[in-house]
């Protein structure tokens, strides 16, 4: 069973790309008693090694990323408003009229918007580009704002965390859920020696994992992720990509990677054999750290197992705990089988 308290702690922590420190500290504290070797590399990735009962036939690296999408303060205007840039891919609608926290001290702020009453007919329902928006922290002037914030400060969503009735609604499930699965594996007794990488900067170009894969130099890799489920009204059939409640998502291909064919088949076979709900994606969409890992050094045989997630990259993503359990079960078994080879 999942450690619900820890998932909440991980999801509510702030950690936009390049500023993963708060999340990293939580993870280091959680895994240090269990891992045989832990180090934080130059980029801020955590690389952990844990001995298993046996020496593996393949050197396996399991990977998830610590960073989340968010915003960064780019400028402070004379009226005290903060201009910002998106960090990672965020829909315009996920930015508009949101409550946020700014900086290390999590100062409350709001993304301002011209009221609906004064919109022209052709502006209604259309979210303006984030470039044209600003965040209000209540400051009346640039000087006053500078007492609290400065350009470069990180901004995260101020949102809910709810884990109830078999589903979780939170920010940053992508990819704190993956981090949780790895922490739980590190806490458990492993069948084989394994490496775990908690990576930085996935959302800004799969950057941390590129360095981590170089350092670990694995034969094989499993990436644990959250992937877009579009199974909502207005989207039918293949456009739904994958289904919340449909089990662990094993991809054969996305925009960044053609996954190892044998591992894909192995994962699907294990799911069938063990009765673990699993599905694949019905569109070639998205991408994750596998994109950097599979082409590291002379190449790494790579597979990704993801939890289907609605409203990815927003203040409130939604997953089912049954899918989360399926991902956790499938990754553990798949890791064992890959090491056996």
């Amino acid at each position, binding site marked *: 069973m999942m450690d619900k308290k820890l998932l909440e702690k991980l999801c509510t922590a702030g950690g936009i790309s390049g500023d993963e420190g708060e999340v990293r500290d939580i993870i280091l504290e959680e895994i240090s008693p269990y891992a045989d070797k832990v180090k934080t590399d130059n980029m801020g990735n955590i690389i952990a090694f844990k001995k298993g009962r046996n020496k593996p036939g393949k050197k396996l690296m399991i990977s998830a990323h610590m960073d989340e999408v968010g915003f960064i303060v780019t400028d402070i205007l004379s009226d005290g408003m903060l201009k910002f840039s998106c960090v990672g891919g965020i829909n315009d609608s996920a930015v508009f*009229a949101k409550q946020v926290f700014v900086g290390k001290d999590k100062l409350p702020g709001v993304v301002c918007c011209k009221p609906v009453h004064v919109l022209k007919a052709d502006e209604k329902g259309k979210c303006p580009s984030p470039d044209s928006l600003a965040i209000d922290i209540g400051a009346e002037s640039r000087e006053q704002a500078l007492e609290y914030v400065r350009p470069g400060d990180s901004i995260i969503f101020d949102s809910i965390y709810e884990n109830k009735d078999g589903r979780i609604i939170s920010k940053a499930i992508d990819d704190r859920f993956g981090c949780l699965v790895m922490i739980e594996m590190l806490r458990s007794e492993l069948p084989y020696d394994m490496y775990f990488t908690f990576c930085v900067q996935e959302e800004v170009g799969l950057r941390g994992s590129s360095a981590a894969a170089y350092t670990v130099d694995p034969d094989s890799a499993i990436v644990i992720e959250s992937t877009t489920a579009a199974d*909502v009204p207005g989207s039918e059939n293949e456009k739904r990509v994958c289904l919340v409640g449909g089990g662990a998502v094993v991809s054969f291909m996305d925009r960044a990677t053609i996954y190892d064919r044998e591992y894909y088949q192995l994962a699907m076979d294990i799911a069938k054999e063990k009765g673990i709900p699993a599905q694949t994606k019905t569109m070639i969409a998205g991408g994750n750290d596998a994109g950097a890992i599979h082409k590291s050094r002379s190449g790494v045989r790579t597979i990704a197992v993801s939890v289907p997630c*609605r409203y*990815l990259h927003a203040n409130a993503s939604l997953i089912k705990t049954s899918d989360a359990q399926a991902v956790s079960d499938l990754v553990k078994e798949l890791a064992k089988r890959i090491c056996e080879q």
Partner: protein
Amino acid sequence: MKTRKLLKKLCAEYAVSGRENEMSGIITELTEKYAYEIKELPTGTIIAEVGNKKAKRHIMLDAHIDRIGLVVTYINEEGFLKAEPVGGMDLRALAGTVVTVMGRENVTGVICTLPPHLIDKEAGFTRDMIWIDTGLSPERVNELVSVGDTAIVKSFFRELIGDKAAVSALDNRAGCAVIIRCAELVSKKLTDTRLSLVFSSQEETNESGAKTAAFLLEPDEAIVVDVGFAKQSGVPAHLSGKLGAGPIISIAPSLSRKMTDGLIASAKELGISFDYEVDGSTTGTNADGISITRGGIPCAVISVPEKNMHTQTETVSLDDIENTAKVIAGYITGGAEK
């Protein structure tokens, strides 16, 4: 009660238009110290009577209590809830937003949004796209939610720098806070005045609660307290007042010049700064209906400046609420120029 605490309590309540009865408990709690009578009308409007019941002078002090929201209109076979706006929801602020559905129990949901590869940016977000995802099984959804249940956009009461508050429902719980604070300020000085605090229903849908209450009460004059536009990018200057710089006093053909002048005189006497909002016809507030009730009731409008109106990031200044209450109190107890 301190303005901050008062406002926080009021904003925590639901009461989407048509469900104002959800607030009768809190209004009783907040006004019973000053009121000799509290009544709830069939329209959902709640009235707290303050001052001298037999006085000749009778003032109605109105603030609408309802908030904008959503109403569930259909539940599909997958358990998604189709919803429609109640009042002037800003459709731009809905996609991906967290809501609370007031069903048999409160249920948290997210308004469905499509991923980038399926979004038609040009088309924007339209009413037919409002679907709520609770993440629950269709069976569980049907146990908890029924067609006709209302929902609100979820947000947190957050304090910004300089005693400002940001949360949804400040329109018009800020106004409700003003009239309660005003009652606190004047309750012991109303020997010759009957003051009816009217927490009116359904302003956001058709302004009916205040108009019907005015018919019932037949006051000599009515002061309407609402939120007004704070100065911000994109809002015309003549329609807005600076946030934190005091109330906005409305001037419009539909309003009483004499009462408006009285409010201005009160502000000046108290040394409280204010802004004007000048409209060319009516005001878009409850005053439009009250002023033509029965044989006509003189009205004035005074507002708390608010940014980001009708979104979950509505923002007001606590000082503005306090100062608005003081200006009205000054008008009432000063007797104004009759």
